[in-house]
């Protein structure tokens, strides 16, 4: 077993050892998001005289927001969310700098391990909800939807990690980077379609956003799971996501290499 697998499975075991916190917050979030959106979209559709939105029923809009909300939890992976910045602030980075392995690789293995456990548990919860409520007749995801969404979810986990890493590496210079992470989360809500599907945005906005990293973090995996993503859109989204992942990976490494020259290992 390689060190990457060891770290990944170790993190998965750790998450399994303390599952209740995740389940409590997941169920609470799904209930609140689901209920809130159910009332909201019903009110909106009623106000439009019963006319829905193209491609979406009220139930699929509710499911969409529940999927993006779950996806946010899977990507955020709370215990790893500010791990790199914490390592820099507390001096815990010291131990990783003397290990003969890449620091970002180690952190990514931790992040992926936590995210995979969150994904499995979230899929179970969401699947149960979908089956039990029948979701107003929305069909369960087929093979294509599952495959597309699995690929995009994995890409979104990776992309979120590299963007967060690049932001957190700025902790070498700044005493507090929490605000930047929160700002980024708000940008995903607005520009990634976390709250409402991007297809409800004006056409010009959709075109611009399709070249940014944001839709890969929320809208595209949700659309894929709901069976609303065409193959051309899947591949173009995949391509854009891979490019942004590589860009932020390089940027993160560059920022880290520059920042570590200022590192003093304080706290150790």
């Amino acid at each position, binding site marked *: 077993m390689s*060190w990457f697998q060891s770290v990944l499975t170790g993190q998965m075991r750790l998450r399994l050892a303390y599952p209740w916190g995740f389940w409590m917050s997941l169920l609470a979030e799904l209930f609140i998001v689901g209920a809130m959106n159910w009332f909201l979209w019903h009110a909106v559709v009623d106000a439009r005289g019963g006319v829905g939105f193209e491609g979406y029923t009220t139930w699929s809009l509710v499911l969409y927001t529940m999927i993006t909300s779950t996806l946010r939890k899977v990507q955020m992976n709370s215990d790893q969310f500010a791990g790199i910045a914490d390592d820099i602030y507390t001096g815990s980075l*010291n131990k990783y700098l003397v290990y003969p392995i890449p620091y970002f690789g180690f952190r990514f293995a931790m992040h992926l391990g936590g995210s995979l456990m969150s994904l499995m548990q979230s899929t179970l919860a969401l699947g149960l909800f979908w089956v039990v409520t029948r979701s107003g007749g929305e069909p369960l995801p087929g093979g294509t939807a599952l495959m597309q969404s699995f690929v995009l979810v994995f890409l979104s986990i990776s992309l979120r990690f590299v963007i967060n890493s690049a932001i957190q590496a700025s902790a070498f210079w700044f005493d507090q980077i929490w605000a930047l992470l929160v700002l980024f989360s708000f940008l995903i809500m607005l520009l990634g379609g976390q709250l409402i599907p991007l297809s409800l945005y004006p056409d010009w906005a959709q075109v611009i956003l399709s070249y940014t990293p944001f839709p890969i973090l929320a809208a595209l995996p949700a659309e894929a799971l709901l069976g609303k993503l065409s193959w051309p859109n899947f591949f173009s989204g995949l391509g854009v996501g891979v490019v942004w992942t590589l860009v932020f990976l390089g940027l993160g490494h560059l920022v880290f290499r520059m920042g570590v020259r200022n590192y003093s*290992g304080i706290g*150790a």
Partner: protein
Amino acid sequence: MIHVEKLQKTYRIPEKDPGLMGSVRSLFNRRWIDRHALAPISFEVAPGEIIGLLGANGAGKTTLIKMLAGIMHPSAGSAQVQGYVPWERKNAFKKQIAIVLGQKSQLWPDLPAADSLLLLREIYGLEQNAYQKRLDFFLDTLDLRKLLKTQIRRLSLGERMKFELVAALIHEPKVIFLDEPTIGLDIGSQRAIRTFLSEYSKTFKPAMILTSHYMEDVEALCERLLILREGELVYEGSLTNISESYAQGRNIKIQLKDEALKHSLIKNYPNLREDPEQPGLMRLHINRDEVSETVLGILKIAPVTDLSVEEEDLGNIIDSLQTSRKGTSR
């Protein structure tokens, strides 16, 4: 093995005036000051040697160790550890060094020690048989076998430090940096760690740099010392030479046969003092050149039941070197 040439470190740290206005002003006009953590320092450490790196808090000990372990970049100067520049952090270099920071755990607190060690086996790419052999050696030597499956966070400080040492040494490093490995431990645990390090050094002969505030650590483990004061190297030499170079005084202890002669002695030796905790025991501090003359003089005046001449305490000498403004010795 370790070659250091004019290595120095200066921190640039922000400074702000006190109060709310000071905070507001610093938002727009931040002032920076240079803090010299380490003045240019040069030394070498040979294989198998244990160097004691001493100094008061803030003297630059940890800064020096972090630079040699590749954690920090220096401001100027050069260093080679096992032929590598530490701060280039090449994997081949990292596989040959270990660092133990007494105030910072290297282990994962939520995992049992066994899991942390297995992870380290993967990280260092150790072959299974060699890993098991070394692990057995450490578990038996440090009496840790029964604790292997316990979560790190549930261990006592002494037990945790023993596992820190196992984790640091499992890949058989050629160079070991020990930054206060016995800090906060009880006397029994301190002794166990000292004995282990001494035996380990004799068996595997790595180069070691040890920092500690405990004289017992230094006396038991180190043959050579580097003493830092406010970032400057003020002493480099053997532990035995430090007494010869700096112990200029001697302490004479006298137990008089006849207490009535005490006042006659004090008249001749005004510095003579009675020990407040041991009545009847007289103490006199003199220059080491005056020992024979003083002892003969005392014996002429008053017969004694006991008389001893002692060197100054090594701890006091080192403490004075660390903190005072005496001349330096290189």
